[in-house]
């Protein structure tokens, strides 16, 4: 197995786009965001596993390129705090913190190079481009719904990162909401934040986010992650991306008819005479390809049409669509075009192609996608770019560098507890344990090593497998992939690295075990190969896993782990992306 892994390593190029492990005060999970005045302001945000005491962003208009020369500017984070955790997350995640440095006084259309620093630990150097203060052409990307389909989410994030290098005038990424499954859980935000690092381009460019709140993003974490875009909990605001282009971000999760509608009307009235292009983004689709029209429709559409909105960017439906221009519930060349609606990783649904507003020249379909908009002086061009299915298929172990392959042979202990913690370490003698092929369990017909004496007798199973730690160093990312029912705790050379559905404790004293069905492979990022290699040292390392059933009487059990590196076969995303739709719009005075 190890030989195979090394041979494969010799034939592939490392991805080089993995996320940073959240540990200590290493700046990780970085994101930039824009709300008002993106020509002169930006918020740089990041996470640390421990709270730390001093947090800065260093920035300048020239890169430091690995030298130790100080940056011209240094901004202390004005807002620091611990992420709000649910009770059952506190034992595992307490201390994880956010940091927001609000930078002002920037020059328009200028590239700034920056590093994040927490308690002396610095991130790699990255850069961003400020918004233009003149009428030059620029691009932006829009997408929504990244709450499930983590493998596809990583792929499309990576694609966005590549777009940033491909198009130097691509300046921002507007996210239409539903980042994660449930916004009150930092356990859900944590992988999203790590995966968001993949939108950083291979050359280190970070696209500032213009975030929208979706229906799956309730609670305080949204504001803690994006530093209160608009105002806390309200989250509606205008971003004047250029003197001729404004994006109004609305919140479909609060009252649409009240203060928000009053504000929207005032903004539309103020902006329409001054802007060539006026857009809005919000989460729930008003002219949907899949669901019923959102409840905001009677309150917002009359305003959109009265003030001649050009484009509405929608999400939530998990499909691709562009409507015909709509005014007064009919196709009208002077109407509003609604485009979306959600493909940043979520499995796609079948659009209702018979709906009148999706007929030609409109379109609908299903594909993981982004909307790439270009604003020029005499036109606005929209291209919906889809990733080919081969790029977004669900995680499959054989597609990745195997460290402990799927279906590998493990040592296992079932029916008793090993006692103490020594069994988790590399030096433990497991020769008395049985050997079996993954996965382990009973019922559901999804296991290989059948534990037919488990039900009613015991609820825990312990696994150990060795792998060559020296194979790690050149791998960009390491993930534990597990199919499990109900929970597990995983250790690398005796140190806990991840757990799921086990609230606290371990072995016989584990507590808070929640029911969980083994529906498919679930991924748990463990960091870069270099980080793990430095921690584990040379030679053999041991992955030890304890699997837990909620009760002895549970009707099934599954524990099927494997340890993998980056994908083996990674075709260039930019070359394989599919143009799903393209349309060009003239300014209103020319229509």
């Amino acid at each position: 197995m190890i030989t195979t892994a090394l041979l494969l390593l010799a034939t592939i190029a490392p991805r080089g786009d993995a996320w940073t492990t959240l540990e200590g005060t290493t700046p990780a999970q970085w994101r930039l965001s824009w709300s008002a005045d993106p020509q002169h302001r930006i918020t740089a945000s990041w996470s640390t596993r421990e709270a730390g005491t001093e947090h800065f962003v260093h920035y300048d208009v020239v890169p430091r390129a690995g030298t130790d020369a100080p940056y011209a500017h240094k901004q202390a984070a004005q807002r620091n705090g611990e992420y709000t955790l649910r009770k059952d997350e506190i034992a595992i995640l307490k201390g994880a913190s956010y940091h927001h440095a609000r930078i002002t006084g920037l020059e328009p259309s200028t590239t700034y190079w920056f590093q994040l620093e927490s308690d002396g630990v610095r991130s790699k150097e990255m850069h961003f481009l400020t918004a233009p203060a003149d009428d030059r052409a620029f691009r932006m990307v829009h997408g929504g719904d990244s709450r499930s389909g983590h493998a596809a989410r990583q792929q499309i994030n990576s694609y966005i990162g590549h777009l940033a290098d491909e198009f130097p005038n691509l300046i921002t990424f507007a996210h239409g909401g539903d980042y994660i499954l449930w916004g009150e859980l930092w356990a859900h935000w944590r992988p999203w934040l790590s995966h968001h690092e993949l939108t950083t381009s291979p050359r280190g460019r970070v696209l500032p986010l213009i975030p929208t709140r979706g229906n799956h993003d309730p609670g305080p974490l949204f504001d803690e992650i994006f530093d209160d875009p608009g105002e806390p909990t309200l989250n509606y605001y205008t971003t004047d991306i250029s003197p001729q282009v404004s994006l109004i971000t609305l919140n479909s999760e609060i009252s649409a008819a009240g203060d928000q509608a009053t504000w929207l009307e005032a903004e539309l009235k103020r902006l329409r005479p001054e802007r060539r292009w006026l857009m809005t983004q919000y989460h729930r689709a008003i002219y949907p390809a899949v669901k019923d029209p959102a409840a905001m429709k009677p309150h917002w559409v009359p305003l959109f049409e009265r003030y001649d909105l050009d484009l509405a960017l929608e999400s939530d439906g998990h499909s691709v669509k562009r409507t015909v221009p709509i005014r007064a519930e009919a196709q009208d060349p002077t109407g509003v075009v609604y485009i979306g609606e959600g493909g940043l990783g979520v499995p796609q649904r079948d659009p209702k192609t018979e709906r009148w507003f999706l007929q030609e020249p409109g379109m609908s379909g299903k594909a993981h996608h982004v909307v790439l908009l270009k604003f020029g002086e005499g036109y606005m061009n929209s291209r919906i770019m889809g990733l080919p299915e081969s790029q977004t298929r669900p995680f499959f172990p054989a597609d990745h560098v195997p460290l402990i392959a799927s279906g590998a042979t493990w040592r296992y202990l079932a029916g008793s507890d090993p006692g103490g913690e020594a069994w988790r370490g590399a030096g433990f003698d497991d020769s008395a344990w049985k050997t079996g092929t993954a996965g382990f369990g009973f019922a559901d017909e999804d296991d290989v090593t059948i534990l037919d004496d488990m039900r009613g007798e015991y609820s825990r199973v312990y696994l150990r497998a060795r792998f060559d730690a020296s194979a790690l160093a050149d791998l960009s990312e390491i993930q534990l992939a597990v199919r499990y029912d109900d929970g597990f705790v995983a250790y690398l050379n005796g140190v806990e690295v991840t757990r799921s559905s086990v609230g606290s404790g371990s072995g016989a004293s584990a507590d808070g075990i929640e029911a969980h069905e083994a529906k498919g492979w679930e991924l748990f990022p463990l960091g870069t190969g270099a980080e793990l290699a430095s921690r584990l040292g040379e030679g053999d390392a041991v992955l030890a896993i304890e699997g837990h059933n909620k009760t002895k009487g549970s009707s099934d059990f599954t524990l099927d782990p494997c340890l993998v590196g980056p994908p083996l076969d990674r075709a260039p995303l930019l070359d394989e992306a599919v143009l799903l739709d393209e349309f060009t719009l003239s300014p209103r005075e020319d229509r």
Partner: protein
Amino acid sequence: MEAGLPENVASLIDQLAAGVLLAVAVSAIVRPIRALLLFSAAWMVAVSFAIWTNPGSTVDDLAPIAHAVRVAAPLGLIFLLPRSGEKLTLGIARTSIALWILLLGAAATFVAHGLEALQHYGRFVDLIIGSAKTWLGWNVSQSNAENLLTAIGIHDLLLAALLLLRRWRWVAGWMALWGFITAFSRVTSTGGADWHQSLIRIANGGVPLALFLAWWQLVRPVPTLFKK
């Protein structure tokens, strides 16, 4: 699909359930069938728990009790149906059980809606603003709508408590009227586009109305089961 089912399977289940529920509606009027009513109640339980376990809104944690009235309506009817060979006049015990189910269902739903109103749930704010504009031409501000929602929330909780503790006939009557008004606010706030949303909520007024009529008919406002 959120439950791990492929979309086409989930869609098929949804369509089949819709077909059966239509049959339930027709049969409930023409000739109620226990199995269909039981399916209807079970489906509503399943739907509410699916929402509860896969929330997509801040008020979805109240879904199981908010849906209680839609479960109670078919369940209550099951107990009111005469068994084969039985006379149409039912025994007091079964009538009491039916009324007990309806009472609990109505109270639970009013509690849920009361709590949602006290949270100033955005959709409720918009129902007030939209209805006032459509029917009265009034521009109600968000703060006034929220103040009204606070009052409505207290009102709903009070009605639920009175129904449970006092079981006054006129409380059931007022709940019926209020249940219909709030159900039809989906239509009045949008001018009719959301008529099906009102139909889904018809039991909000229907179940309290059944209690009101039953207690009127029985003269005694207290179901036998509650008598000391």
